[in-house]
């Protein structure tokens, strides 16, 4: 019964997504678009469209429900496999898990408490647990995977059966909206990660503020997200690839063009490295060094922020 409900929701969201494109647009269209009355605080971006805030959540939900099963294959095809390198680099630079010399004198609880937001399929969570176990020999670090989408979480639970962390207290799943997570107490998390998720949030600043609340003083907010390419020439190639090839691959492999069209449009809408760094600072975080690290010429960027001690 609930499944059929989901499907109908999904279907209606997809229909809305495939609204007929404007047949012809001249340069003055952007001016006309500016003239349209815009109710601030009530609409938000969904790809290139403005939708009511209340709807975005369900529309994003529909997109990710439909891509959950083919998520990995599609990521490999769209990024030519590079997303694995990015994720490995991300985890290695964070170096999760207590290293032996500090563990000996440790009195404040064992291991790290990691919260992986929008990590439904467990990509990052399993990598972090592997790193903590194999590199730092830390068997106490635990990860909570949180996702708003039950389909993505189900995919992650299915995958966790093949890992050594299945059914242990080191791995747990939670269905929650990252903008308000009342089940997580203040100052309780060492490391908050969100990888390729934050651009789908309805209110990014609210999510950053919530991250600031749950992190312990000294805790780290780390985010990997698509960003702006800094090279003009490379940007042209990249835009051609993302706007022409990716929806086509989505159409052929996953049989779902609209979801992947949304994906590339939401990437285009996401703020640039400097703007997003400003948002992290606005939430109260300290920024280490330049504040971000570009990957593959800026296609993706790693942002970090540290919660001050007092």
């Amino acid at each position, binding site marked *: 019964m609930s499944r059929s409900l989901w499907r109908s929701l999904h279907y209606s969201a997809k229909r809305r997504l495939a609204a007929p494109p404007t047949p012809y*647009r001249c340069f003055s269209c*952007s001016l006309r678009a500016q003239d349209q009355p815009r109710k601030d605080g009530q609409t938000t971006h969904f790809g290139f469209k403005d939708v009511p805030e209340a709807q975005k959540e369900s529309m994003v939900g529909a997109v990710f429900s439909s891509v959950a099963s083919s998520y990995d294959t599609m990521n490999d095809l769209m990024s030519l496999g590079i997303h694995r390198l990015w994720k490995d680099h991300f985890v290695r630079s964070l170096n999760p898990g207590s290293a032996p010399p500090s563990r000996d004198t440790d009195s404040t609880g064992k291991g790290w408490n990691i919260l992986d937001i929008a990590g439904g399929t467990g990509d990052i969570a399993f990598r972090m647990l592997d790193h903590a176990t194999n590199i730092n020999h830390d068997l106490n670090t635990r990860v909570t995977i949180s996702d708003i989408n039950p389909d993505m979480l189900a995919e992650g639970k299915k995958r966790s059966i093949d890992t050594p962390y299945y059914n242990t207290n080191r791995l747990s799943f939670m269905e929650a909206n990252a903008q308000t997570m009342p089940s997580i107490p203040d100052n309780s998390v060492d490391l908050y990660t969100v990888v390729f998720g934050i651009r789908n949030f309805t209110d990014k600043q609210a999510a950053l503020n919530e991250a600031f609340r749950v992190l312990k003083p*000294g805790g780290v907010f*780390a985010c990997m997200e698509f960003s702006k390419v800094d090279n*003009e020439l490379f*940007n042209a190639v990249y835009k051609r690839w993302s706007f022409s090839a990716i929806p086509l691959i989505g159409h052929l492999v996953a049989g779902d063009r609209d979801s992947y069209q949304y994906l590339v449009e939401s990437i285009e809408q996401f703020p640039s490295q400097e703007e997003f760094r400003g948002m992290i600072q606005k939430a109260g975080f300290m920024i*280490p060094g*330049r504040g971000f690290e570009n990957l593959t010429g800026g296609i993706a960027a790693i942002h970090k922020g540290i919660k001050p*001690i007092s």
Partner: protein
Amino acid sequence: MAQPFLLSLPRRGLTSSCRRLSLTSPSRTIASCSRFTPARPQHHYQPRQRQQPQPLQRNYHSENHPSKSPQENEYSNSQLTILSAALAHVPRHGFSRDALILGARDSGFLDVSVQLLPRGEFDLVLFWLASRRGLLRDVAEKLKGKEMGVEKKVRCLVMERLRMNEMVKTEWQGALALMSLAGNIPLSLSELHALSSDILNLAGDTSVDASWYTKRMSVAAIYASAEVYMTRDQSPNLAETEEFVSRRFEDNAAIGEKLSSAKQCLGFMGSTAVGLGRSWGWKI
């Protein structure tokens, strides 16, 4: 709307705006060829933000207008707290992530807080170098009263700087290895230059000709080689290193002497040749 504005521009402005148009056009065509692209976002056509006017930058050195230290070597308070606490763990754990983590713990941070230092353990090395370089100022103050030549002061300062490394002597090879990684070489070299420049300035060297460069290069070379030598030095109170340094300064003086003799000789031969030519009636 843009037409009259463009026309009123002088020729030069027109061509430059055309060039910009052609630069932005590829992305525009790509976006418009995508069939499913609905209304474009409004902020997509935002004009490029003009760069803030930079504060006046001098391309010369002035005693009256001390230049600000470069941005990348400035640390925030929290970074300084972690780094100074981590230095206490260097003799035991080396210039490593472990020392950083222990330092972070000592100063009330978490293990994960070492993310504050984007360069990791290399930040620890840089901090060590920069802070020890700062300490040289006090040494130079003590030397001020004594009657000493510039040469002798330089030698004294180099030796004092080497003695500061005695505490981490066993770990210094690790630090040298870190500094010699490809990505770290530019910063290491600029730090070495800053050190040799500081030593010469504090010793009272006031040369403004080409010897400004050669002096800094020779002091940097002597210091760097002595640093490597010191990691193998087992003698008490760094006696062997001290001998090594004085030998290098003698070599340096000898090379300088030879170079200046060679220069003198070449100059003499040149003027002789000119005189000879003139005596043959050449119009030189």
